[in-house]
């Protein structure tokens, strides 16, 4: 197992480098250059040239890439073009907010979706099953930003229960209730799409399990249905679902970019969107690589959990 994990970790390096090359190329292929996006057009061409020269944007792209890679290897993601701050510092500033949001929404998604999936599977073709299926398709089809805006309109503007955005009331002392109020809507919105997918996934995975011989055996032995499903079925049924979690991590980064923008949630997703508009290459690259790293690690964790949950799997 240990050697397997080490092997996987080493494999990550070429994968990440590959991703960085492709991202770098796509980013530079997009129209609009940081030098014209961020500089006051009134400044003289000489000053602008000097700025471009200082940023090294005149060099061929492969040269810029190699320089970037060299710095990253030393842990330096550079300085943001638009905000003049070290990128690492910017990301570390915002990371806790994003992690909080992602963890909350994963938690919400799991505690809502898994029971629904199980119920749906155990009562296949019942009205409940159809209801859950219908609901999860609605959830899948609803765009995040639209749902976010609707929830804000209803709960923040009409009812005044939750704040319009941000992580905490400005100027107020720290309070858990206040933080939760701010967290609730964005976490819920971010959870919706995953919830839907997770419900469907849990349902089909459970359906497969409940038709297995050992479940029939357990039933035949006279165990109570509840025990059969939750003790024997769920454990096996959840194995593929766990993999799902690993794969959900990176999509969450993408989803959180939109949700964070709608709710003014100062996380790295919003930072990413702002950076893209400003063609702030160092920030774009750093966040892309962060997402890539999460994806790779998410996969690894999923595989490890798989092994833990299912002793039959060996490496």
């Amino acid at each position, binding site marked *: 197992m240990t050697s397997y994990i080490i092997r*996987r970790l080493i*494999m990550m390096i070429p*994968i990440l480098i590959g*991703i960085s090359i*492709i*991202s770098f190329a*796509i*980013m530079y292929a*997009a*129209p*609009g250059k940081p030098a*014209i*996006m961020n*500089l*006051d*057009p*009134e*400044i*003289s061409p000489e*000053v602008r040239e000097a700025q471009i020269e200082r940023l090294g944007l005149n060099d061929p792209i492969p040269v810029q890439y190699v320089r970037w890679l060299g710095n990253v290897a030393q842990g330096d993601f550079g300085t943001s073009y*638009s*905000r*003049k*701050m070290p990128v690492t510092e*910017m990301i570390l*500033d*915002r990371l806790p907010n994003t992690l909080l949001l992602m963890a909350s929404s994963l938690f919400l998604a799991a505690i809502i979706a898994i029971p629904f999936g199980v119920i749906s599977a155990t009562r296949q073709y019942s009205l409940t099953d159809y209801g859950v299926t219908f609901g999860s398709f609605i959830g899948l089809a609803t765009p995040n930003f639209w749902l976010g805006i609707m929830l*804000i309109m209803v709960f*923040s*503007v009409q009812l*005044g229960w939750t*704040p*319009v*955005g*941000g992580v905490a009331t*400005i*100027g107020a002392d720290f309070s858990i209730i206040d933080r939760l109020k701010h967290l609730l809507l964005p976490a819920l919105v971010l959870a919706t799409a995953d919830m839907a997918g997770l419900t469907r996934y849990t349902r089909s995975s459970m359906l497969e399990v409940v038709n297995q011989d050992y479940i029939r055996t357990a039933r035949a032995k006279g165990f109570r249905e509840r025990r059969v499903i939750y003790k024997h079925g769920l454990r096996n049924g959840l194995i593929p679902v766990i993999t799902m979690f690993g794969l959900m991590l*990176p*999509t969450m*980064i*993408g989803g959180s*970019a*939109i949700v964070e923008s*709608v709710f*003014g949630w*100062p996380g790295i997703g*919003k*930072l*990413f*969107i*702002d950076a*893209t*508009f*400003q063609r702030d290459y160092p920030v774009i690259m750093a966040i*892309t690589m962060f*997402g*890539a790293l999460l*994806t*790779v690690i998410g*996969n690894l964790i999923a595989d490890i959990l798989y092994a833990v949950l299912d002793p039959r799997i060996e490496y």
Partner: protein
Amino acid sequence: MTKKSLLVLLGMVMALMLVLAACGGSDEPASTDEDPDVEDPAEGEGEDGDGEEAASGEPQQGGSIVLSTSGEPVTFNPLYSQDSASADVIDLVHASLLQTDEELNLIPYVATDLPEISEDGLEYTYTLNEGVLFHDGEELTAEDVKFTHDIFINPDYTGPRAGDFDTLESVEVVDEYTVKFILSEVDASFDTRSGYGILPKHILEDVPVADLEEHMEYNRNAPIGAGPFEFVEYVDGQYIELVAHEEYFEGRPNLDKLTFRVASDSNAELLMFETGDTDYMILPATEYATAETYDHGRISSTLALRYDYIGWNNDRPLFQDPKVRQALTMAIDRQLIVDEIMDGKGEVAHVPASPLSWAYPESAPEFNYDPEGAKELLAEAGWEPGADGVLEKDGERFSFEILSNDGNVVRRDIGVIVQQMLGEIGIEVEARQMEWGAFLDQINPPNYDFDAVVLAWGLATDPDPTAIWHSREIENGLNNISYKNDRVDELSDQNKKIIDQDERAAVIAEIYEEIANDQPYTFLYYPEQHVLLSNRVEGFTHHPRVNMYKVNEWYITE
């Protein structure tokens, strides 16, 4: 394993492409409204001491307000800021030699009076108020003024304003409260550049000029100035907090505390205002009708120091004949655009100057809505209707594309309405919008790849037209429509050498007349700008250029 890695890789690529694509299609936030402004420095903040009050009732001390801003500030150092979110804070934290009042006249601020200008126009002497204190208690003196301006002319200076001071030769301290600027040549607009916040020498003198731009300790964490409000903290992505400067030389501000809240975009700002989370926002014209329905807020409007226009690429054969450009202007009903798209909130424009400016001419050629006249002019220029009704000349159809930036609803609507109006006289127009970055790429040097473009200019207090209209600005400057007129070049070169304002105004008026006749742009309108503020805020003065004007006079009624 390999299959999964491939999937991961593909996934990331898709994610990146999605984001890039999303940027193209979504409503662009604040950056959209940052037209390529011809800006001069953000003017200083404060009051001129005559204490006029806009509202009834006695100003009271105390209380705090929350303002919203849709951009993330970059730096609180006035020598380097380029965005309005930064400038708004800088105006409150720093004091400058002069500022402009709401009629755009230069008025004294830290200086006791306007500068004394020597006979030859090469020396500007400022006398400073005594007892102006920085937030740390040190007095602001001539040394600080010299220190600040020496940075601008230091070859190591990396900020954007070197060009503003290329006529400045040296700065001399005459005595503690007197400072003299010595110019290398006459520069009539020099005093309009006295609005940059003065930096404290005692804090920054050891920082090499080359490192100052990235000196975060001062620029972001602890800026100190002599303005009405002291900086407390900036939490990235969330807020900036300021408190009253107790020792402010014009008297302690009424408010105790001021917080700028960072919002994603103007929609979010409006929602926060609606729920009472904020007390002030810059109101986009498109949200006017919504904001009008609020009971707890009111709208203040004033003419903005800017104009909106359609620029015709003079380099394209289609737009080389001035007669054709005049005809295009005549075929566009600008009053209708103001009435329908701007809800009547603006004035039709005829020249590249604002009615607010002292240089606004008394008269200039006007090309009013006259589609019949337009057709005649086009016929004179050789354009005749072809088989399908579209004008033709030498086998060439009069057909082009009008470009604007994504997410800007007003400009999109202008494109569409112009398409229709020009269609009526036989010109085929296609209106198109592009993502901001791609748009800039396409219209700016060296590409100039456009036929016509809908844009706006924010104007500086000084009316010098050189930066946009001089032909030497074609290759690398702001004259991206390649406008060339020798007379305009000649007069532009002259105008900054004339110190007498009336004489200078006459020269500039002639430039405007030439330009109005040539119609390189169709000048659309002068828009109004709006501010939405809570009814609990009084003492507000609406300034056409400065968002945070005389905030020390604002007060709360409750």
